[in-house]
């Protein structure tokens, strides 16, 4: 009896293993659409969605009223069963890398990092979209209409003809703004700063008047905050040190890093941050909080201890867990965008992304349903669908004003809270609200943020576009030098910029140069050289590096 028991236990434990060995094989059938444009049998696809961890996780990014609506509609329209796979927003490249490496990536993926796509493509891990886009073009009118040929074919390799990713449409060219406490300016009788010196004087005034501005919390005063992602949160400042008049070609050749660390003049921007840090104007503890973790930083801002910071043009006005403006409003505080950093020509130059500067949509080679996945994108690109995702149902999340403008109203029911502004995490094909006509879009721009006075957004938008220059993109095919270095270089960049900012002023040059040389040696130099060489090869013109730019 005892022996029988042993035998049964062993068999019971080993049995699941043999089942494992059997499973995981499922036949795939050829794509088949019925006369109504629906699949004759239900297709299953998985779709990535950014998870911003907002709302304390009460409304999961992959399962809420919006996803339920998408699932029902797509099933109705195409007989496609959609499952969402959450990917943490602020560590998205790491997370998508891990999923791809494990072979678990969703069928439809998007990322801000083209090198990530390229790396996997080089290993054969990404589906070549070129043949599918050609074959099914007639089924994808809305997709082509929204993205236009320039975004669809932006990544088409001129040599090999491969297409690893579609570029999502950046509807408005956005970058970062400088935000300062409007109420503090008023209390101190200061005007909005319009030069670097005035901005610095403002930071000093914040610091010196901590007692007046924060009372009992005076010791917590942070005139300006920043994060380990200095390239992003210092962007308006650093770009103001880029000399005026550089050519599109040069900016592109030195444009591998999206924080633009390779552009001329960058170091001088960091030098000024170093000065401010040593003067005690910048949050002292910022280096301890890891990349991608904005929580602690945002808590300080919401608590009202921070006088100024730089971030996405609408960052303080966003809802869904960020809620900076609405939280501060309870105690009479507010952030307003200012335009304090002129460049060497006296222009308030902003380098804005072209329409192709947004997310890249790709299918891993584990995707067995390319047609269903493309039809999903087609469905997303249809105006009425993406419009619904951006503004929700009338009367619940928006109302239509007499002018026709769409005004977002605070969600009556918490379920309708959008995890991201305009639900961009679901509308992966478009970033920026599009109501179907330019006139309507202009009228609705400032009305998209519930609980926030539209004038703040209109001001930030005006400033962001003031002296704006769209940076052109050039397609030269696969660039080999950057493969495998995306994350390594990004981490190196963050590390050495942080060290440079907190270095004693006398050591600034040594620290910055050591970090920059290490960055170049690890791959930065090879990347720039390859871009220069490839450009010359394709366009037959040599790009001249500016005088004094040492490679």
């Amino acid at each position, binding site marked *: 009896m005892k022996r029988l028991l042993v035998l049964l236990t062993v068999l019971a434990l080993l049995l699941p293993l043999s089942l494992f060995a059997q499973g995981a094989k499922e036949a795939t059938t050829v794509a088949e659409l019925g006369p109504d444009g629906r699949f004759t049998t239900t297709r299953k696809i998985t779709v990535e969605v950014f998870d911003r961890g907002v709302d304390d996780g009460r409304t999961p990014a992959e399962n809420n009223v919006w996803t339920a609506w998408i699932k029902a509609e797509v099933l109705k329209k195409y007989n496609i069963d959609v499952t969402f796979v959450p990917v943490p927003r602020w560590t998205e490249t790491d997370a998508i890398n891990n999923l791809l490496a494990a072979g678990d990536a969703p069928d439809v993926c998007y990322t801000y990092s083209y090198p990530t796509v390229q790396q996997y493509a080089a290993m*054969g891990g990404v589906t070549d979209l070129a043949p599918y886009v050609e074959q099914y073009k007639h089924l994808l009118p809305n997709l082509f209409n929204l993205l236009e040929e320039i975004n669809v074919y932006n990544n088409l390799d001129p040599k090999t003809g491969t297409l690893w990713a579609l570029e999502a449409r950046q509807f408005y060219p956005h970058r970062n703004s400088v935000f300062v406490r409007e109420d503090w300016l008023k209390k101190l009788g200061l005007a909005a700063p319009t030069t670097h010196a005035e901005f610095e004087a403002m930071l000093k005034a914040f610091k010196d008047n901590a007692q007046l501005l924060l009372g009992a919390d005076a010791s917590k005063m942070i005139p300006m905050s920043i994060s380990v992602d200095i390239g992003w949160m210092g962007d308006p400042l650093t770009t103001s040190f880029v000399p005026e008049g550089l050519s599109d070609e040069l900016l592109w050749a030195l444009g591998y890093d999206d924080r633009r660390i390779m552009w001329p003049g960058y170091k001088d921007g960091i030098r000024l941050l170093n000065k401010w840090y040593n003067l005690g104007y910048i949050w002292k503890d910022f280096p301890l909080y890891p990349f991608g973790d904005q929580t602690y930083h945002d808590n300080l801002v919401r608590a009202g201890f921070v006088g100024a910071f730089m971030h996405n043009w609408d960052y303080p006005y966003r809802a869904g867990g960020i809620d900076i403006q609405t939280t501060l409003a309870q105690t009479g505080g507010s952030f307003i965008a200012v335009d304090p950093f002129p460049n060497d020509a006296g222009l308030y130059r902003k380098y804005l992304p072209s329409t192709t500067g947004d997310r890249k949509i790709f299918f891993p*080679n584990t995707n067995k349903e390319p047609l269903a996945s493309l039809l999903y994108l087609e469905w997303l690109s249809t105006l009425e669908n993406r419009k619904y995702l951006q503004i929700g149902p009338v009367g619940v999340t928006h109302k239509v004003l007499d002018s026709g403008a769409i005004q977002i109203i605070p969600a009556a029911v918490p379920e309708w809270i959008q995890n991201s502004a305009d639900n961009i995490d679901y509308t992966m094909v478009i970033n920026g609200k599009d109501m179907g006509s330019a006139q309507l879009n202009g009228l609705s721009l400032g009305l998209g943020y519930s609980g926030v006075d539209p004038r703040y957004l209109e001001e930030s938008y005006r400033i962001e576009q003031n002296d704006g220059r769209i940076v052109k993109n050039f397609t030269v095919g696969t660039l080999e030098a950057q493969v495998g*270095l995306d994350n390594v270089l990004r981490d190196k960049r963050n590390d050495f910029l942080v060290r440079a900012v907190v270095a004693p002023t006398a050591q600034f040059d040594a620290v910055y140069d050591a970090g920059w040389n290490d960055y170049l040696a690890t791959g930065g130099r090879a990347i720039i050289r390859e871009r220069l060489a490839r450009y010359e090869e394709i366009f037959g013109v040599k790009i001249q590096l500016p005088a004094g730019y040492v490679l």
Partner: protein
Amino acid sequence: MRRPTTALQARDTGSDRRKRFKLYMHKYWTLYALLALPITYFIIFKYIPMTYIQIAFKRYSIIQSPWKMPLANNHGWQYFIQAFRTPDFLRALRNTFMLNFLDLVMGFPAPIILALLLNELPFKGFKRVTQTVAYMPHFLSWIIISGLARQLFAPTSGLVNIVIQRLGGNPIPFLNKPVHWVATYVLLGVWQSMGWNTIIYLAAITAINPELYEAADIDGAGRLQKIWYVTLPSIKGTIIVLLILALGNILGGGFDRPYTLGNPLVRNVSEVIPTFVYSWGIKGLQFSLTTAVGLFQSVVGVFFLLGADFLAKRAGERGIV
């Protein structure tokens, strides 16, 4: 046992052995059936994955089996050469040695001392409470500990530094200066693991024959003398086995502790081999390079383990191999 072989026996040894084997198996087959489970586990999760070591010598492709991937340059040694030419790897190697060595020096004796102290406590209730409290930190993940560390040790907003400043001192850069960071790192490690590691020593101490202590009492030995002449020699075997295992791990070590405690200001001392493998291999997709690094790490670990084992045996102790 070997039996003398005669011509007669030699003729039917084969069938004889088979018979004995059958009898033996008939008697003990349940033990072997149970053994099948751990063996299956080791084959599936330890030995089969080991065949993937060859990725270190091949050019990685996501769609090919490792058996079919093309051999890397330099007869497959390309990635080893590349690793030793990468300053980041050499730095990680140095830091791994340094941090693990400090961990060993500070962290290895600590639980022994704590176990001896606990053993000397006359009040059993107090001993039990202390023991439980001491091993609680073992159950905290490093994510949580690093969060606590930031709250406590941050230069301006950390509790400890706020207290120091209120008392008129200057803030101590626990987490943002390399030397201070290393000290914080090592001490947090001791704090986290010390209590848990006493368990095994306490168990060894419990097994000591009480008559030895009684004999020592009769001989007039004091407390310290009993610790020195009875307790420590009795648990020497345990200490040596654990030391050998610890030495085998000199190039190993966890990922989460340096990764979560590290920050850009101390990267020069906090980047270790596991974090290097993570950022270059998993995030940077250089699987061949980092498999090579991992293989190197294991081989060095095996050498240390064998070396320590050899020395222990030379010193007259039982080894583990």
